[in-house]
């Protein structure tokens, strides 16, 4: 099963919509609550990343038999140095974004910690694609 959500850059009030929808679906499927929590945390962080850094993006959730795959595609500035972006505490978020309580530099590392598979590709000036997989068991 496939679920798709559109995300607009800068729209913080909508950040969290996709993760709460996906949560609802996983709950109905009877997935272990601990796994659901990991999915929600990872997806929420990834959603916020699009809102905080990109212009727009599309989130696609694939519900497979063994786990959930989340693909987050955004159009945005891209990440010039992914290794640096993966360092805990490193952030390029604007002052405004930080003032709203986001952009502490924990997003990507946190997503990776919660995922069973984590893959990120980015092209500067074009956008970023994040591909994560979390197993149900």
């Amino acid at each position, binding site marked *: 099963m496939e679920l798709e959500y559109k995300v607009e850059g800068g729209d913080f009030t909508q950040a969290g919509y996709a993760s709460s929808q996906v*949560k609802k679906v996983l709950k109905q*499927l009877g997935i272990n609550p601990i796994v659901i929590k990991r999915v929600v*945390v990872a997806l929420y962080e990834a959603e916020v990343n699009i809102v905080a850094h990109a212009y727009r993006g599309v989130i696609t959730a694939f519900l497979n*038999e063994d786990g959930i795959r989340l693909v987050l595609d955004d159009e945005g500035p891209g990440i010039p140095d992914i290794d640096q972006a993966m360092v805990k505490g490193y952030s390029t978020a604007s002052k405004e974004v930080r003032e709203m309580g986001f952009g502490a530099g924990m997003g990507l590392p946190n997503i990776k910690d919660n995922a069973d598979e984590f893959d990120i590709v980015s092209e500067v000036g074009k956008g970023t694609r994040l591909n994560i997989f979390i197993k149900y068991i």
Partner: protein
Amino acid sequence: MDNKGQNSYYRGLEIMADVCIGCSHCMKVCPTEALRVSGGKATIHAEWCIDCGNCYRVCPTRAIRVVDDDFEQIYKYEHRILLVPSLFYSQFEDKMDVSTINNIIGEIGFTEVCPVEIGVDYLIEEMNKYIDESPVKPVISSYCPAIVRLIQVRFPSLVDNIMTLLPPLEIAAQYHKNRYVEDGVVAENVGIFYLTPCVAKIVAVKDPVGGYKSPITGVINMDLMYSKVLLAYKQKRFGDGSIKTNEDITSNAIRWASTKGEANATKGVALSIDGISHAMEFLEKVENGDIEGVDFIELRGCDESCAGGILVRGNRFLVSDDLHKRASVAPWINPHVKEIRKYCAEYMKFDGVQPRAFMKYGSDIKIAIKKMEDVRNLKKILPGIDCGACGAPSCEALADDIVSGERELNNCVFMQVKNEKAGTLQADEAISIMEKIWGKKYDS
């Protein structure tokens, strides 16, 4: 429905099919969508029911019955103790004070009457320690059994947030049982009865969570007792005053069952939320991790908490107001805390609450995903107005029922009209479908 009338969970409510007119009022207010109308009668999915009593409240024909215990059974016991919630007294006019009512309860047949909230002051001490030490926050009160069931069924990830300390009702019951036994009375001769303002508490006594077994012998319907007390009063049967009573109760104890009763007595950041829909809205946020810095949440299923219980005859706002008035002139210190601790300390904690999540689409994940996809596709076809004419509370519920084979797409009136126009459904077939759901509501 396959689980009608037989289930592994004790249920406090029963639909009397001979009285039910299949009007669907109950179906529309059920917070867990556990009700359907079929064959002109309401039916219930037992394992989804949380005993909140919303259906009982709205039933216009009183077709929903409370499964309480027979009053006459109290006479099987030599010592007949009635645990009375303080809100019971707040339903009567002022001149019927607590002592008058207690004496009447003696006249009606009990040998001792005790406030349910007698252990509250001891509980507050334990709760504050518990909240302080709990690694899981916010701690959710175990007080309202409908909320505990709601969390088990709908928010299984939060079961570990539920405080594993006994509610005041069970503390009072333990206290009395152990006190009598220590005085040398044979336990079989002691009957401990609880006067309940709601059905959720009946279920909590009969089928408790967390591996606990309640010493409560029977549950008495508060609505019934209200009538008995009022009748005795009108007939001037005031009792001979021989009933044993304990009227030492503190402000915190009197207020406990009302909204903020717990939250105001606990340290730290404590919230109080009443009403099932408000509780669900907040639990959703807690589950998403949106709530930070809150130590404790008091959640009650009924509006105005227990004053709004379905078996409370008094108006919930007036009852609540009276509780607060009585609390304002009550003492602050309970002289019995030490004694209660002595009798109850070893029983205070129960094992954690287990989730009771319903697997809507079954436990095979492959099939579940397929079913869910089917439901999503059906939802695109259905009108999305949740009119309930199909006998299910919402279009989503109908889609679920279709996928599980309990209903068909033609149960939807919009589909019927569409198919009639296309010539694939005859008018008399449509009528027959509607009669299957609603029974004969008119001459066709």
